[in-house]
């Protein structure tokens, strides 16, 4: 579907706790069509700080009688996310979306969903989709510390419902296994073979996952983050370098890319 430029009504802002929070917006029926991996561009402030909109993966979608609700899972890192965390129920925000290419189809074999920090955002919708398709998946959730594993319960529940497991890791050991999320994944890659690895998170993690996909010849799809000026293909600011030497636009050709196509 074509993205629409509309405005959403803030339903609530939920701390997970801070700096992580959910922003729930009420909007038009068209939002119901949002697919896992797609994002929206939000005008976080009517003023100059920040001036440009900000990109957020759609974390969850639900139908309402008049339209739809989308939930965004965000982390306060600067002015835009700070403005968002300060919104109150009833405030309206300009929203452009849904934008970008969603995650592709899962294979017959179980999938591995791998999240680094707030990169988990788009994977909830993906989990829901896989569950609906009756596809099993394990969910790997890595963070620096326990607080960085926002919405763990929801992810764990989804994974288990699908028949899969939920594996959390933290660098300081404050929750789940101590270490990086790639460790438990590597283990399981040696035993059971996954059909696909779906990921989102910091570039460093995605790069490593791309390597692991190659090593174990398990196809991988990663949702990338780049700076974005517009989100709809006008500014050419979201360039992603591909292995074939071409330049792709994260907002149009992505944010989801097949790992082997990206020049990491």
């Amino acid at each position, binding site marked *: 579907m074509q993205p629409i430029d509309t405005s959403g009504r803030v339903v609530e802002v939920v701390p997970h706790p801070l700096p992580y929070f959910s922003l729930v917006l009420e909007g038009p029926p068209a939002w119901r069509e949002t697919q896992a991996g797609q994002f929206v561009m939000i005008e976080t402030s009517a003023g*100059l700080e920040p001036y440009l909109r900000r990109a957020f993966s759609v974390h969850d979608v639900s139908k309402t009688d008049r339209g739809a609700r989308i939930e965004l899972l965000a982390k306060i890192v600067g002015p835009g996310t700070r403005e968002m965390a300060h919104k109150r129920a009833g405030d309206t925000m300009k929203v452009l979306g849904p934008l970008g290419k969603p995650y592709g189809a899962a294979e017959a074999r179980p999938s591995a969903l791998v999240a680094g920090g707030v990169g988990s955002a788009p994977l909830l919708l993906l989990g829901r989709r896989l569950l609906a398709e009756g596809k099993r998946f394990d969910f790997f959730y890595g963070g620096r510390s326990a607080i960085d594993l926002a919405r763990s319960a929801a992810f764990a529940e989804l994974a288990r419902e699908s028949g899969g497991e939920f594996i959390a890791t933290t660098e300081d050991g404050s929750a789940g296994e101590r270490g990086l999320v790639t460790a438990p994944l590597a283990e399981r890659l040696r035993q059971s073979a996954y059909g696909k690895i779906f990921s989102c998170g910091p570039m460093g993690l995605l790069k490593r996952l791309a390597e692991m996909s190659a090593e174990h010849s398990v196809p991988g799809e990663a949702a990338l983050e780049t700076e974005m*000026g*517009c989100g709809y293909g006008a500014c050419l600011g979201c360039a992603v370098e591909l292995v074939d030497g071409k330049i792709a636009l994260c907002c149009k050709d992505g944010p989801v890319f097949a790992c082997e196509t990206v020049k990491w």
Partner: protein
Amino acid sequence: MVSGADSGGRAEATGAIATPCAPDLSVRLGNLVLPNPIMTASGTFGYGLEFAHLAALDRLGGIVTKGLSLVPLRGNPPPRIGEPRGGMLNSIGLQNIGVEKFLADVLPGLGKFPAQVMVNLFGYEFDDYARLAERVDSFAGIAAVELNVSCPNVKKGGIEFGHDPVQLERLVRSVRDVTGKPIAVKLSPNVTSPVAIAEAAKAGGADVISAINTVLGMSIDPWTRRPSLNTTRGGLSGPAIKPIAVRIVHDVAKKVGLPVIGIGGVETVDDVVEFLLAGASAVQVGTALFRDPRTAERLVDGLASRLVEMKIERVSELIGAVRPWENA
């Protein structure tokens, strides 16, 4: 808080079209007549057509294409944009599909809109400009050419033709020799005397001056210590540069005697009126389109309402109508 106190600094831009007796929004740029003074700025709205689903292209006064070169360009590696307070930094590096693909695939589709199409041209070599102008000269769908001699993101050779009056006059003349279409020359703000550069463009045969291109700037992330741009330095745009643009538009309009297109931080109806008063005959909207793809059409509506409010029948009455202080 007091409900009813209208929020946001950009309310004027959203005023809906007003009255029965609609004011005359048309403006002239030399022989070029625009249905209204609101154009999209080069490099900020692609080639126009691809955003027909987000913006009402039929409402625009003019569309300026992304900078076109003889061959397609890949542009600079990422990161390509940064966001200092009040503006935007970019180093896209003039990525574009090339003039041939534009003429073949895009131009035909643009035909159905009243908006005047201006192609923005640039080259690395002196001759590129004339070759590009010559190539597009025969296409009726192209109303004018805009020469980008001022992009801070082109390193090759390192020359910005827009910084050297002598070079520029020759360059413009070489284009004048091969096309009858109106020629707009886009000024760099990064010079000691924009007026001298504009004079040179005029001497070379330019019909219109577009002012301004981005301002050379730079920013650094205090934590990663990385420049926000892969190229370290890049072009500053948005509200931050508007006072610089207004000053240059004012000086050029007053001293050079060519019609001027005002560019730089245009986002509200106040901004449009300000540029017109300073001497611009039209404006281009750039960075503001990234924030809101409908900015340009909103400005067309808002400008119409504003003229009614000001009891002005023709927008052209505002051009250069600034009132300096007596003892200035």
